[in-house]
């Protein structure tokens, strides 16, 4: 009975497919053909695939070769091809050709011509901005490169701003990005492999590494992971990052995301692997350790003491960001004896007329700060964030005068909020801001005891984390041979080794680094 029903329904589906001409199966059938000897068949097929003439920017030009009068058709998508190249190096020479026996790939004056015999490849070529030429009585089509995707030119880095050092940032065009990196590493062993990662959109990722430096196993592992993604489309690196990271629910990022080509190049030279992609004005650097999020390139560009001073400031800022609000809550509600007498009396005096408990007061202001920060980010003006923060402070002042918030809370929250900006990496920045709330919660519940236990648990977690097999806090713990660039950096001539946790094939960066 059921079998019969199934058969019936199955038949019905099949019937439907035949009736409806433009099915998925039908479309892929069209693509699976090989190039026909009849030019008309080919033209029909491509026109059908691209829905010409409904599809406005897909162009076809039909004419005869000047010499032997052979029929020719050129297909390309005008919005992503350089039309000038098509005209000058294909249409013009073909029309002006006088030799009777000339073959097409000899006539074309482009940098390369590839002969293809499958419609599928034809389509891929057209989609990537190339032009494809069909000729009558030939089972081959000819494709030549003339892609010209529109995009920004190389601009200044906006999120990772440096005072000293290169100002270039990566752009949405992967070719430009590759060029920016190759400009910094002029070496034949810099390999840019391309891996196609999605089924439908055929997104292509460039995997960059330096042969003889990067660990082969690591390269193989990452390539494998990229090839085994089973998705229809991955638009850009920000999305790819979430597909390939190991712990998707972890607060801490495990892949470094940078928009600076100089940063990418220096990581490449240490033996890391870089992923580049079209439509992504940035590079993914992997594996990444906690320190790579904590650092900025400027600390190496600045001289030894200046760079380490900046690092020192940042460490302090990080602790202030996480702990001030929590410590304020813990100390004022559980451990009042820790506060110096004057401050204690000042806090008690200022709290006399305030309605809410300290925990709630801090939470209120922290939430207000985050709200204003988020809103300021969406203000369509580069001044937005600044205005937002100033607004927050003014708002706080008004709140104090209205006796809703005690003035010390404003100081505490403003301090912890503002110092969070010293962490320039966006992922770590978010992580710290969320962790701050966890600490506030634990301090509100258990005081310093709660904070210390949360901190201990947090450290356990950090130590257990791994990014593509590399411990998160390496090379500090576990200890690896490296150039010791963790909280502080060494004098540049003493940074002799590549990080050992990457297991680079060539460990030594320089013999002594000094002037020979």
């Amino acid at each position: 009975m059921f079998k019969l029903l199934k058969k019936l329904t199955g038949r019905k589906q099949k019937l439907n497919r035949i009736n409806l001409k433009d099915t998925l199966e039908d479309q892929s059938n069209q693509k699976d053909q090989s190039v026909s000897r009849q030019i008309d068949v080919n033209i029909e097929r491509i026109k059908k695939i691209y829905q010409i003439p409904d599809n406005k920017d897909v162009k076809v030009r039909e004419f005869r070769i000047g010499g032997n009068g052979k029929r020719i058709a050129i297909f390309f998508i005008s919005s992503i091809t350089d039309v000038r190249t098509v005209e000058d190096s294909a249409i013009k020479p073909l029309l002006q050709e006088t030799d009777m026996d000339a073959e097409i790939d000899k006539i074309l004056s482009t940098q390369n011509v590839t002969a293809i015999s499958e419609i599928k490849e034809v389509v891929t070529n057209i989609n990537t901005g190339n032009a494809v030429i069909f000729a009558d009585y030939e089972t081959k089509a000819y494709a030549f490169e003339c892609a010209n995707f529109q995009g920004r030119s190389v601009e200044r880095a906006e999120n990772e701003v440096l005072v000293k050092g290169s100002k270039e940032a990566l752009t949405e065009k992967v070719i430009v990005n590759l060029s920016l990196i190759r400009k910094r590493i002029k070496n034949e062993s810099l390999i840019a492999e391309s891996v196609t990662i999605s089924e439908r959109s055929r997104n292509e990722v460039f995997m960059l590494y330096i042969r003889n430096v990067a660990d082969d196993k690591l390269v193989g592992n990452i390539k494998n992971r990229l090839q085994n993604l089973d998705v229809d489309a991955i638009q850009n690196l920000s999305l790819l990052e979430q597909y390939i990271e190991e712990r998707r629910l972890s607060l801490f990022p495990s892949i470094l995301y940078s928009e600076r080509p100089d940063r990418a190049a220096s990581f490449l030279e240490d033996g890391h692997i870089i992923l580049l992609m079209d439509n992504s004005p940035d590079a993914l650097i992997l594996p990444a350790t906690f320190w790579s999020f904590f650092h900025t390139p400027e600390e190496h560009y600045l001289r030894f003491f200046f760079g380490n001073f900046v690092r020192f400031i940042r460490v302090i800022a990080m602790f202030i960001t996480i702990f001030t609000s929590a410590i304020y809550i813990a100390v004022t509600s559980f451990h009042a004896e820790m506060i110096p007498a004057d401050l204690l009396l000042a806090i008690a005096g200022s709290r006399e007329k305030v309605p809410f408990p300290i925990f709630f007061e801090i939470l209120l202001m922290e939430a207000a700060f985050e709200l204003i920060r988020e809103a300021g980010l969406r203000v369509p003006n580069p001044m937005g964030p600044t205005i937002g923060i100033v607004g927050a402070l003014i708002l706080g002042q008004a709140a104090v005068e209205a006796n809703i918030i005690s003035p010390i809370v404003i100081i505490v929250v403003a301090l912890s909020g503002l110092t969070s900006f010293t962490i320039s990496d966006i992922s770590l920045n978010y992580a710290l801001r969320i962790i701050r709330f966890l600490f506030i919660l634990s301090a509100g519940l258990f005081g310093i005891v709660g904070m210390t236990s949360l901190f201990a648990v947090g450290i356990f977690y950090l130590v257990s984390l791994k990014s593509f097999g590399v411990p998160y806090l390496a090379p500090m713990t576990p200890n690896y041979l490296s150039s010791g660039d963790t909280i502080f950096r060494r004098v540049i001539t003493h940074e002799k080794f590549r990080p050992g946790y990457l297991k680079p094939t060539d460990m030594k960066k320089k013999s002594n680094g000094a002037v020979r």
Partner: protein
Amino acid sequence: MKLKKICNICLVLLLLVNLAGCWDQKGLDRQVFVIGIGLDKAEEKGKVNVTYLIANPEVGSSQTASATDEPSFMTITMRASDFVSMRNNANVAIAREISYDLLSVILVSEEFAREKEFVRFLYTAEKDREIKRDIHLVVTKEKVKEFFGRNNPKFLKRPHKFYEFMIERGVEIGIIPDSELHHFFRVTEEDSNLFLSAFATTKIPSNKDNYRINESDAVAGDLKVKGDANNAQFLGSAVFLEGEMIGTMTGVETRIVMLLHDAIPVRDVLTTFQDPFSEDYQLAVRINQQKKSVVKMDLKAKPPRINVKLPLTIDVLTDPGMENPVENKKKVERLRSEFEKEMESKIMEVVRISQEEFKAEPFGWSLHARKEFKTLKEYMNFDWMKTYPDMKVKVDVDLRFGKFGRQPKTPSYKGIRD
């Protein structure tokens, strides 16, 4: 499956919140802070009159706290069995919870300190969790209640500041001893020394003009201070033996004890000595103790002997006789010998008082004595406290001259006056 797991974790976390319960949590605005506790004798046995000195947090704290016309502190006196239970008793008159977090001084009236019972009440401080051991013990001549009432420091609005600075500076210049509570407990339990506590009063006899040769050679109350700085004086020390007050020491005597005591550094002693060159004048000197004193003992001798060598550096700051001692080696030597003689005689006087009057020593020499015995038992059998009054004590002052003022040489009086 995963959802269930997350739900479970959330549930556990929620339970944790219940468990936490915030037992210890106290809002700062729900507490009042006691700066000083006063203990007075109560008529009933087993009771004590406790006086609280409570700071008003709104005075002098910030501009937004606007209660400037309120007084900066208040006092409350009640009879209680101890000052722990007093915390709740006082709530009949005070709205908020009473906190000892800022407690910085315990004052005891002389009358109560001389009681045998006194030590029973003070030991409560060892039990209470909030009372820190670095709180100072101060003995007042009058009842503490009256002391609090009359003490009205100028410029220092907040009471904790007054007590903190007053005691800190007094200890620094050596006119009152460093009478932290844990010293009291240590000395009392060690049972071989005298404990010195700071002595203070606001009861200044107005008719008595009791000037001494040396201005600090008096106890609080005996020094005439004119003007309207403050009614309270902190000077000299109350002497405790086995947790009971048995007498007083003047400021100078306290200084001498502190110079001889190794544990208490005295940094800034300004005092005067008789000018050996002209009888009418005195020389102002600053005494510095840069090295520890060397204590040598011969306890097998009968009577046992103690030799103390006290190295001091002395700066002579004035020269009213205009004798220019710095110019002349002989004069310097004479200064040295005169000073040493004067200091030694003063020191020996203090030693004599301790041996004859108090019958115990405040100098902390018993610690040095312990080294002389092989076992603790031998030391105990020796009975330091009993033996001390009969001991032969010798103190050698070893003076070194530092500076003779910023400009060592002064013109001679005759040269100016001719």
